[in-house]
């Protein structure tokens, strides 16, 4: 299934002809299962231990974020976006603020942009660290979890010092920032960069050449580049399949074009490549943070945005590279203070769709590894 033209829907979702075969076993995993990272329910069709197909049942965490948006003003809706991908709340906020700014046709001042980039990239590292810890835990290595959480704590401390919140930060405002960076912000960030660099080596020491880790991840959950594109998979999962595409480079937003960084790609598109891609991404994020913290200019942190945000009639689609993939906001304005419709394009939701393709022909234990490697957050899948 390498040519996307042959990727017919029959291959994806219709039950196999052998569905009523006596050898098939249907097993239900979740919604309360320690390895589904939340309330994901997976119905597995098994032949022995081999997965013949699976279906995801989602929606257990559905809160109707898009409906809420239609009943709030633009400003009021800002904190809600943090609750979608609560692991990378800053990225969500960045996407939303930039989308509304674009709709208003304003641009955040340079200083605000730099601080935004620093926080967003720190958040990307935090998200990847959380992913690594839980993913390794699913595969049975318990120690990386504690290492990553120890280091993630340092990022959360910076967030807390900056805006008072650790997880759902609500760090940005439409038009810029609400808070000026605190005294010693640059120093904290520099210290963190120096602190975490050897720590990432430490994670790699534990896993990258670990025989069992290699056996558990190599060749598991393979998805080819064309398949990944056809399924709309984005983020590290797409890059691990060999497609060198990152919105930060392809359609630069914020001020990413000022920074020098690489886009890591993998070749085989298996779980191990996705692991490596994310490890490199963490280092690249550190590179961006280093450059950004050196170049923070002086100046205002808030653009001229009216107190009551009332964009003209029109619609806009804006997307950013969240830690999980392409996070897009499609905003329709009817000229009032409330958005007429906000559609969130959640990366986890779309990536999760690929689970079926990635798990076919693998073993049950691999399903757990693949769910881990997709790096889904159910808050974002269900919204």
């Amino acid at each position, binding site marked *: 299934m390498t040519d*996307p033209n042959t*990727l*017919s*829907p*029959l291959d*994806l*979702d*219709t039950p196999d002809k052998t569905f009523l075969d006596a050898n098939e076993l249907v097993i239900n995993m979740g919604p309360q299962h320690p390895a589904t990272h939340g309330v994901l329910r997976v119905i597995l069709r098994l032949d022995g231990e081999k997965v013949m197909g699976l279906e995801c049942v*989602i*929606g257990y965490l*559905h809160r*109707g974020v*898009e*409906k*809420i948006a*239609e*009943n709030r003003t633009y400003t009021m809706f800002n904190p809600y976006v943090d609750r979608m991908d609560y692991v990378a709340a800053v990225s969500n906020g960045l996407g939303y603020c930039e989308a509304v700014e*674009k*709709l208003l*046709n304003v641009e955040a001042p340079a200083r605000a942009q730099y601080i935004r980039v620093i926080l967003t990239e720190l958040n990307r590292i935090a998200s990847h660290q959380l992913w690594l810890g839980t993913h390794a835990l699913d595969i049975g290595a318990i120690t990386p979890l504690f290492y990553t959480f120890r280091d993630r704590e340092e990022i959360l401390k910076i967030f807390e010092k900056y805006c008072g919140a650790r997880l759902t930060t609500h760090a940005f405002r439409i038009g810029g920032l609400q808070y000026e960076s605190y005294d010693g912000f640059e120093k904290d960030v520099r210290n963190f960069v120096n602190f975490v660099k050897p720590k990432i080596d430490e994670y790699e020491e534990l896993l990258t050449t670990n025989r069992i880790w290699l056996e558990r991840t190599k060749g598991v959950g393979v998805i080819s580049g064309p398949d990944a*594109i*056809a*399924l*709309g*998979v984005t983020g590290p999962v797409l890059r691990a399949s060999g*497609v060198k*595409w990152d919105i930060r480079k*392809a*359609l630069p937003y914020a001020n990413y074009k000022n920074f020098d960084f690489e886009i890591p790609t993998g070749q085989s598109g298996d779980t191990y490549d996705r692991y490596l891609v994310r490890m490199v991404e963490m280092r690249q994020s550190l590179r961006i943070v280093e450059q950004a913290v050196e170049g923070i200019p002086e100046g205002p942190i808030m653009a001229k945005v009216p107190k009551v945000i009332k964009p003209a009639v*029109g*619609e*806009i*689609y804006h*997307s950013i590279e969240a830690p999980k993939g*392409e996070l*897009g906001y*499609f905003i*329709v304005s009817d000229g009032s203070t409330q958005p*007429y*419709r906000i*559609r969130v*394009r959640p990366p986890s*939701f*779309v990536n999760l*769709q690929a689970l079926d393709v990635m798990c076919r022909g693998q073993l049950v234990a691999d399903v757990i590894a693949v769910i881990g490697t997709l790096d889904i957050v159910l808050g974002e899948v*269900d*919204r």
Partner: protein
Amino acid sequence: MIAKLKGEYGSGIEPLTYLGQNYMVVDRSLIPELLQVLRNEEQFDYCVDLTAVHYPKREKQFDVVWVLYSFARNERIRVKTLIAEGETLPSSIPVWATANWLEREVFDMFGIKFDGHPDLKRILLPDGWKGHPLRKDYGILQQDNEWVQINLGIESGQ
């Protein structure tokens, strides 16, 4: 590209730009063919998103929007079509496999049916739920009380 498509399909396509973002409003009847053309000839190989907007006051109540991206051209485009209540659209799963869940979500939230979808059922809401919450006539506090009472055993979810 727009000009070429315009030349081919004539009045069925209306190319527009807002704040530097291109989109086109396409007649419903042209949708199946146009999506194929965009995918195969214009290299829009990545379907970013598929969603809908409800305008209850209009005759054709729904906007259905495809957000497409082309890796080769590094370009994003939106395709928009207007349909009325009860009208169906052809499923675009044969064009982009990713449309599967996206179409299910649109069905779930707006009640727009897609012909040829292999498994068109609710995705986020429970299967037996009544109503399509993202329609404008569905209040924010409204819910399927009957479902809640039967399945959760409580008076109300509020």
